[in-house]
């Protein structure tokens, strides 16, 4: 037996546990969901084969059609807003922390602190803070004579409130990723730029931005996947129906209540639910792959 052959067996032996685990717990359920999407369901009992009907329903038949596109639109808003708010602010914050001003270590910890809380706790806390009657936010606004709106109850502010809370929760993570990227930029490059008279703004735009491209790639991809799979925060703060009146409905909530039922109806519809899951997976997977490919190309090796 040749060395290479034995090596092959050895590698196979080491890979097997991981592969089996992946196959059983990841690939198999996913293939299952794919199959379910083509069937009619009575509860968990599988009914007849219906071809593409479930997909046609969720994409083209009212009332599903409206729900699908509204949810997708909301996810898109969430993604764009988070890119600007969460990652944009994080970029500036990371640059500020990079300066090493007095107290920057404490600040770094403070900025990162909310990240360690679970989404359920964050959602619950902020739901209390935003309560129109005794919530912290409106009480504080009242001190300066402003009557705050019912943040989570108005269709104009509900989704925005959720986005801000999410930003509060994850800002520290984005900041840390950018900070790590900035710290790996060689100091002599920054010094040279400064000697040439570059201002902070120029530095941020022309020097650091292209050099932290790997961080941007990571954050873009994670924010994309996170935005389109958003579930915990809206679930805790707005409920499965995306209150008020579907103003905070996102694909995650829509999928969950379709497949598993909501409070007012224990009705489960695995067929349409699986069709939604498959569409979400295909959408997020393909977009993330394309984005990753494009973003990787702009990364420069130092």
């Amino acid at each position, binding site marked *: 037996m040749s060395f290479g052959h034995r090596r092959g067996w050895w590698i196979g032996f080491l890979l097997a546990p991981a592969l089996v685990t992946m196959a059983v717990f990841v690939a198999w359920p996913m293939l299952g969901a794919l199959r379910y999407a083509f069937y009619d369901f009575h509860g968990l009992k599988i009914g007849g084969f219906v071809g593409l009907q479930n997909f046609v329903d969720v994409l083209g038949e009212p009332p599903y059609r409206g729900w699908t596109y509204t949810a997708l639109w909301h996810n898109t808003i969430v993604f764009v807003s988070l890119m600007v708010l969460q990652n944009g602010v994080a970029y500036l914050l990371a640059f500020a922390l990079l300066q090493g001003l007095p107290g920057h270590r404490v600040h770094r910890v403070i900025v990162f602190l909310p990240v360690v809380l679970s989404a359920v706790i964050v959602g619950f806390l902020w739901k209390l803070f935003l*309560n*129109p*009657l005794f919530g912290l936010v409106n009480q504080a606004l009242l001190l300066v004579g402003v009557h705050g709106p*019912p943040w*989570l109850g*108005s269709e104009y502010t509900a989704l925005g409130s959720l986005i801000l809370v999410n930003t509060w929760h994850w800002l520290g993570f984005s900041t840390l990723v950018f900070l790590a990227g900035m710290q790996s930029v060689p100091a002599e490059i920054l010094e040279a730029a400064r000697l040439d008279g570059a201002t902070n703004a120029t530095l941020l735009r022309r020097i650091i931005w292209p050099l932290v491209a790997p961080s941007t790639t990571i954050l873009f991809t994670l924010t994309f996947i996170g935005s389109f*799979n*958003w579930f*915990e925060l809206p679930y805790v703060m707005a409920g499965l129906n995306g209150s008020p009146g579907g103003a905070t409905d996102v694909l995650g909530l829509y999928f969950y209540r379709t497949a598993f039922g909501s409070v007012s109806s*224990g009705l489960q519809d695995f067929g349409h639910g699986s069709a939604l899951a498959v569409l979400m997976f295909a959408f997020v997977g393909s977009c993330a792959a394309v984005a990753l490919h494009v973003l990787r190309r702009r990364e420069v090796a130092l």
Partner: protein
Amino acid sequence: MFMASFHRLARKAALAACFSVVAGTGVAQAGDITFWTWRQEDRAAYTELFRDFTRANPGINVKFEAFPAETYNTILSTALAGGRGADVVQARAYGGLEQVAKAGYLVPLDIKTVPELGNLPVEALAAESLRADRQVYAMPYASQTLGVFINKAVFSAAGVSVPETWEQFLAACKALKDKGYIPIANGTATAWMDEVFTGIFTNPFLGPEFVADIQAGRATFEDKRYTTALSRLLELRDYFPPGYTGIDYATGQQLFVTGRAAMFAGGSFEISNFRKQNPKLDMGFIAPPAPTAGAARYVAKFFDGGYAVNAKSPNQADAIKLVRFTGTKEYGDRFAALLGNISPIKGVVLADPLLAEVAKLNEVSMPYIMAVYFRFDSPTGSELLSNGVQKMLGGSATPEQVGAEVTQGIARNYPPFQKK
């Protein structure tokens, strides 16, 4: 954000939980049977009820196991589909029951094997039957009534008398508001409560005839009667708490039990919870106001669920004994006393005066329409209506739009509406 990994973790945890549930508690020992419920808070009461059962049936012990309400149906049907699950399971009613029973997971009950079914009224049994063949699958355990809770102390402090007609109701609300109380504690932020709210206040305007017309396909929810009834709800908006669109179910309950609000529109299932939160609360439960003086004040009524036997249970004989026991008057009396719910069993004594009041209101009742008739197919009438009413009360939909949306959504699976 970055929830991808959290998501995966959560999913794995859920899977693991399902497995341990299924593997760990599937089959009990001989002489022991298991009971599954979504009511963790009822553990103490059930422990007593099951002790009574064991006394009457020596050698059979019942093991109580509870699961979270939101995921109960999923856990139950997953377990049952895998040939596991408890011997006796608490099943929901109407659409929730049909889903589990239609798949053949439950033992059909009949008067020969379970003579105690005869102790129950027909409408209670209908709630635990399949629509197609009227076969009963579970022993109904409670009816729920939707109406208006009033804080008697607040009413008398404000010098307001309890209203009977719609006009009196609005006048009472105004008087309470002028005295600085929040007239109605409910907000609209929790979607399913919007359906409850609608069920309570629209029923007297609709009447049983409307329900018959809906069933026969003579009317849809676009009917003038329905949209007019919905538009009545808009008149109540002035009497909700400030910022009511952001007031959720829990906040509404708090406003009522602390006496900041005078009324709470809800179900009889709140009684024991309200008492626990404020034992001194002097509350009453009234029917919704009548459209005109002397007209009927229909409360909305539905059945909660029932006890069913797992078709794959190895202890079926013992399980049937337990279900038979839950159909006796003795069980009904104890159930009502311990859990503060109305047992539908004939002749049950309601020692609690408030429960007795609710039972009296049940004499003039109508079905809670969406729950009773439109939770069988997806999308359910309940989710369509709660979503629509939430928008309507928030000011972004008209009663006509809500009626049209609900009708269109239901028509997908409801032949009587398809002719229209």
